[in-house]
């Protein structure tokens, strides 16, 4: 299972980026292989359709879960329709925190 996490930077100590479409990096974490990939968010530079473009990118990576600080009202139905679980993190957490939570070991 692949999980996407929005990130403010490209290290495990970076925080979860609360802006979904305009986050700096996407982290793609593969739960089975434990592979972690940091991908700069190309959509961030767009002037419009930022969220949509980010969703399409993530869907192309076959994620089944996405972690961010917030999902806009246009984003939610897109993930809903593709059966991707959305997770809204409410307090500052690092990418490392999230990965540990996903692995269910605190």
């Amino acid at each position: 299972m692949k999980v996407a996490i929005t990130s403010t930077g490209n290290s495990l100590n970076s925080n979860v980026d609360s802006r979904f479409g305009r986050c700096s990096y996407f982290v793609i974490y593969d739960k089975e292989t434990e592979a972690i990939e940091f991908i700069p968010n190309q959509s961030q530079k767009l002037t419009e359709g930022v969220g949509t473009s980010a969703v399409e990118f993530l869907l192309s990576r076959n994620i089944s879960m996405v972690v961010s600080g917030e999902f806009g009202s246009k984003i939610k139905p897109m993930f809903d329709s593709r059966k991707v679980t959305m997770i809204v993190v409410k307090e500052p957490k690092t990418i490392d925190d999230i990965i540990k939570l996903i692995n269910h070991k605190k």
Partner: protein
Amino acid sequence: MKRRVRRMRRMHSLPAVKGFSPFGSVQNLEDKTVYLLLEEYESIRLCDYDMITHQEASVIMGISRPTFTRIYASARQKVAKAFVEGLKISIEGGKVYFDSDWYHCQSCNCDFSNPDKTTEVKSCPLCGSKSFTHYQDDESKSPEIVEKDLEDCFNSSENRRHGRRKGKNCRENIQGKGRNLV
């Protein structure tokens, strides 16, 4: 002229395919397409695939029973037309929104969605905790429209002849109008 106020129709998820095309036709059929709206597809899915009553289906889609029956009748008519005349079916457009249930995890303090309503939530997808609460539907939750694909034909089910529209002609005059009708 009195303008009918139309409500958004709630939908479970997108169909598996964007449409169907016939095969093995004897004559060279014209390249005609029947446009089945997403809410029409959904009505067939609920009534004929899930085998539930019109009453239950109308509740699921968040519309009145007469409205449901009208959508369903139109869906059947379009599918029948495509069957009999050997036409393509394209599933697109309509006035629908997608909706998932939301939960709150008391352990890691996150909110999470359950996009697949047919499966019951057993634990928080992030931390695995079993202590979570279900956000109940509140009236203020405003339905949203899926951008792109769905926005184009907003107005189309207002127009019963939508199934016969040609190509992309309806796009321009539809843009923007839909929102006013909400």
